[in-house]
């Protein structure tokens, strides 16, 4: 489904990704781990189409199409979803209105009829319980005044509504207490499916106790330096990144 080859990326003239190769198939959950500044969030944001980055080499194919040639909104409508590390607060835009606009953008793209307010509320009701989304979070402006945990729950709630084919979680666990982490993780686990691929970018192994990956990759210095199964995460937990880094950077 996703094929990244020799991907090189710069931001503000500095090279951040120095040749990433990664292959993800449907049904798989991949974890990308790495120390601060390794480039793991950059990878997530480049896949979502953030305008701040310049791709200087390599290619990314998504379902056989050139992902990098697609606008961010086209990627989203084609089923790519990134849960933001820092969800953006948007004053004056009601959260429920925003969710409906996002859902209808996708439905329109797929040739499905747009949902009216009643149908939309029905879907909201079905999915809200899973992520502990209350009426207050729906009626406020997007992410405005949300706590850290509320923001991350709102991200995964969007994922549940939009049902992406490829979900990329950018440090969704950062700043969460254990209860919020469990809520978010169970939301993600409910979305695991043979038709969907998930990439979990995280700094901490703890998240992987709850969202158990099929593959773990270590990204450092802009390259994937080690890949393995879920046991690799446990080894990183025990030994830190130091044992990999010096030899390869």
């Amino acid at each position, binding site marked *: 489904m996703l094929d990244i080859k020799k991907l090189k990326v710069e931001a503000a003239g500095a090279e951040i990704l120095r040749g990433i190769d990664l292959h993800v198939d449907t049904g798989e959950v991949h974890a990308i781990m790495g120390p601060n500044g390794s480039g793991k969030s950059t990878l997530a944001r480049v896949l*979502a*189409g*953030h*305008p701040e980055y310049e791709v200087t080499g390599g290619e990314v194919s998504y379902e056989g199409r050139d992902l990098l040639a697609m*606008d*961010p*909104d086209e*990627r*989203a*409508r084609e089923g790519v*979803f*990134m849960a*933001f590390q820092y*969800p*953006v607060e*948007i*004053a*004056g*835009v009601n959260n429920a209105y*925003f969710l409906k*606009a*996002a859902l209808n*953008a*996708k439905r329109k*793209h797929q040739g499905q009829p747009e949902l009216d307010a009643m149908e939309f509320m029905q879907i909201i009701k079905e999915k809200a319980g899973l992520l502990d989304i209350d009426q207050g979070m729906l009626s406020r*402006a997007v992410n405005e005044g949300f706590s850290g945990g509320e923001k991350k729950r709102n991200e995964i709630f*969007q994922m549940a509504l*939009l049902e992406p084919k490829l979900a990329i979680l950018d440090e969704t666990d950062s700043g969460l207490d254990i209860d919020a982490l469990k809520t978010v993780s169970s939301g993600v686990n409910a979305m695991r499916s043979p038709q969907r691929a998930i990439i979990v970018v995280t700094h901490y192994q703890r998240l992987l106790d709850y969202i158990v990956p099929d593959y773990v990759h270590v990204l450092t210095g802009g390259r994937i330096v080690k890949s393995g199964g879920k046991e690799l995460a446990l080894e990183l937990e025990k030994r830190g990144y130091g044992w990999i880094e010096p030899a390869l950077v």
Partner: protein
Amino acid sequence: MTTQIAENVHPWMAAARPQGGPRWVQDLRERGATRFSALGFPTVRDEEWRFTNVAPIASGEFKPADGAAPLVESQLAGLLYADARYRLVVVNGQYRPELSRVHGLPAGVRAGSLAGTINGELQADSEIVQRYLGQLADVGTRAFDALNTARLQDGAFIHVPDGVILPDPLQVMFVSTADGGAASVSHPRLLIVVGDMAQARVVETYVGTGGRYFANAVSEVFVGENAVLDHYKVQEDSTEAFHIGSMHIHASRSATVSSHSFTLGGKLVRNDVIAILDGEGAECTLNGLYLADGERLVDNHTTIDHAKAHCPSHELYKGILGGRARAVFNGKIIVRPDAQKTNAKQTNRALLLSDSASINTKPQLEIFADDVKCTHGAAIGQLDEDALFYLRARGLTFEEARDLLIHAFAGEILDRVQIDALKSAVEGELYAQLAKDLAEADAG
């Protein structure tokens, strides 16, 4: 002797002044004329007019607009928000009873021609008008107030007596017309007196039937003790028009007054709002939203004068600028020595949709009391890139995301409009103009 006088008379005062009316009105005009001759038109050397050059008005040729200009109901129906239950229509400064709707006003409420009351056709109204007219307009220092007063002849008058609640909005529609190629000038005047414990909702609209004209408006608004006034000024003059308007508000003890200003039209627009909180516990809210596009200039000057203690004031002005438009926001807050426990908050935001648009903004706090709370903030910027990306990352196109953010920006002010029909009229007009601007920007 004759020559001497002529030298002191401003060219704009040389033409025949309106005649008639009682002695006190003639005196008012005389004082306006004298002061205007002394002051002349302001220039950019004047601190209050630093960024707004009125030379196109000062050097322009304007002939007095025709107050009796033929105008029929069907022409008004196409203009912005013409459907209020009660409506006073003033064409080129002159009240037009045949176009107005005042039938069914609650007992005691007076709404109609200023000239009629000045000329003493109704004794009771005449006494009220004499007591209030000209008391707030500042002919001493404000040239355009002086000019308007020198030309004082007619306009609209509203009186809501003590204790009377006016349940439906009352609209005052100021229409300007320009006939043929010649530019015209009119001096719309409005006096609103809301008595103690009374309540009213008044909408002033300034519209034009097209062409080049200059509307120089003055409104004086008195809000009595414990009275409530919800006021709107919607300005959508013709694209070639000059609009200079000053509104003076006097709020008595425990009065609650809110005024919302929407600027959607005109080539050069200057709105002055001067509110005096002259009794303990008086509360004032000023909201503003303006769209400046093309080569337009929109200047908003506000003054909130806290003269007494325990008065809160809230002010939020927002502007959307495109093309090569310019805007000015100057928000003055005065806190007098007696005005302890003042709580004043001022916020000013502008959204720049083009690199060639610009705004000059200045808060001005003059605080002479020590136990007060005054805050002010200004934010000028383009659309938030992070917000745009966030929305696009959820599938909204660039255009959808942009429109959503612009509408959210404007919505904060529009949502404060308490009259649904007015809100949708202003919203519709604003978004139609914006859509046109953005389409042009995208194309060009």
